């Protein structure tokens, strides 16, 4: 009986949070046009959320691309199909690994920082002070950060895929001796702009939206204590990971399911 009560309380609490989250999202979206009026705030966020994340994206993409090249070669060579390595690497990256890994890395590097920053502004009463100065913190603090995340993730995902393809080239062509011309021409012939690239970009746009939403919401909704902020930061990373992986399955089923 006790367990049932706890389950009920847990679900109710979850639903309540979800409701708060959606209301918060609408309020933030309502304020997005205002971000255009404060370009300096927005570009500062674009820098700290987007530009500062490029480093981890570049390093991870290079390593993922090289591993794909090595592993893909080992399988393809059994069928004498190692010339298709470029196609395999590119499709894996553009359709799946680029958007998904970028979103996960973004949550770890930028999302957690956004949550901690907004949460600490709450702890130190900065959000409260802003409200008392008749300045809307959703417009001044949250909206620029949210938009910066939404714009950054698809660009970072594109960067991830591009560097990953180069990594695959380095491993496959550079180390294992796959023909360079075949690597590029197979890729060019078999990767479809609409079917593969556009779908991948749509995925990364959805992930960017969800990852940024979770990050700013968790920060704004954090219990204003040291422990509260630490929990909120953890939740950002964990919830983003779950949300991205679940959404990836749904989107993949819709896009490539038939």
């Amino acid at each position, binding site marked *: 009986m006790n367990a049932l009560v706890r389950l009920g309380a847990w679900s109710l609490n979850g639903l309540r949070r979800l409701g708060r989250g959606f209301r918060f999202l609408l309020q933030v979206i309502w304020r997005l046009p205002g971000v255009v009026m404060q370009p300096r705030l927005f570009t500062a966020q674009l820098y700290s959320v987007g530009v500062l994340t490029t480093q981890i994206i570049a390093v991870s993409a290079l390593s993922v691309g090289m591993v794909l090249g090595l592993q893909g070669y080992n399988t393809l060579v059994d069928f004498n199909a190692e010339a298709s390595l470029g196609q395999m690497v590119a499709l894996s990256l553009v359709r799946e690994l680029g958007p998904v890994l970028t979103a996960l890395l973004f949550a770890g590097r930028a999302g957690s920082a956004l949550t901690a920053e907004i949460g600490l502004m709450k702890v*130190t*009463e*900065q959000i*409260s*002070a802003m409200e*008392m*100065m*008749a300045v*809307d913190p959703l417009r001044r603090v949250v909206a620029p950060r949210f938009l910066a995340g939404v714009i950054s993730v698809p660009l970072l995902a594109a960067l991830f895929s591009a560097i990953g393809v180069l990594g695959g080239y380095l491993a496959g062509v550079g180390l294992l001796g796959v023909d360079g011309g075949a690597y590029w021409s197979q890729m060019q012939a078999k990767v479809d702009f609409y079917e593969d690239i556009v779908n991948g970009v749509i995925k990364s746009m959805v992930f960017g939206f969800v990852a940024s939403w979770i990050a700013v919401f968790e920060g704004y909704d954090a219990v204003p204590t040291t422990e509260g902020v630490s929990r909120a930061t953890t939740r950002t990373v964990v919830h983003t990971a779950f949300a991205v992986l679940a959404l990836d399955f749904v989107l993949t089923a819709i896009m490539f399911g038939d």
Partner: protein
Amino acid sequence: MDVDDLVILEDVHFSHGSRRILTGIDIRIPRGSVTTIMGPSGTGKTTLLRLIGGQLRPDAGRVVVDGHEVPALAREALFELRKRMGMMFQSGALFNDLNVFENVAFPLREHTRLPESMIRDLVLMKLHAVGLRGARDLMTSELSGGMARRVALARAIALDPMMIMYDEPFTGQDPITVGVIMQLIRRLNDALGLTSIIVSHDVAEVSAISDYLYVISEGRVLDHGPPEALSRSSSQWVQQFLQGRPDGPIPFHYPAPDYAEDLLGPERAS
């Protein structure tokens, strides 16, 4: 209703979840005065300031500021009213991505379209008033606690408000800083024609600078009056609080079973 009262709280009730914080508070704050609301920690003093600023809504009762019913105000009207209220938070609540100058300039930049030269003049005047004109280029992390509060004070008066609320302005400060802040509160109040509301439990300091005191505990006003009158209060509770006696109506011991029973009773065996 007395038009000379800038802030009126009438039979205000407020609960946080199931916890009842305020149970029928009546407070009147006359224009031009320095009024202090005193009480032990956790009795809802900060809640009172948030009710006056419209960040919280009372469950029942009236909160009136300058003739406006605060809980009934729409968002825009509330924001207009807040532009005329300053607040100094306990921590200072300075924006740590901005330096001292930009912190004080923040409300001016948000709410006015003044040219840069005039913003500079205004900011330097406000900083001069709190004695920190020379600290304009420091980052907030380089400030001591007392300096941070003075910068917060300069920021609170940036828009020339009609009133300022101080949340625990003396807590955790050294004696010199306490003296500086005391003097600033009184001097700014009189020089700028403000109305000041202080929330504090530092009896000696607030008695020295306040025109009127309220003592609250457990969500009610226990007594109120000018400092001299309050020091002769007939309430045992108020006397204990003002003189800081360890025992009295607020017992030294947290409720516990009988001492002898506890030490020698049956529970000891295990």
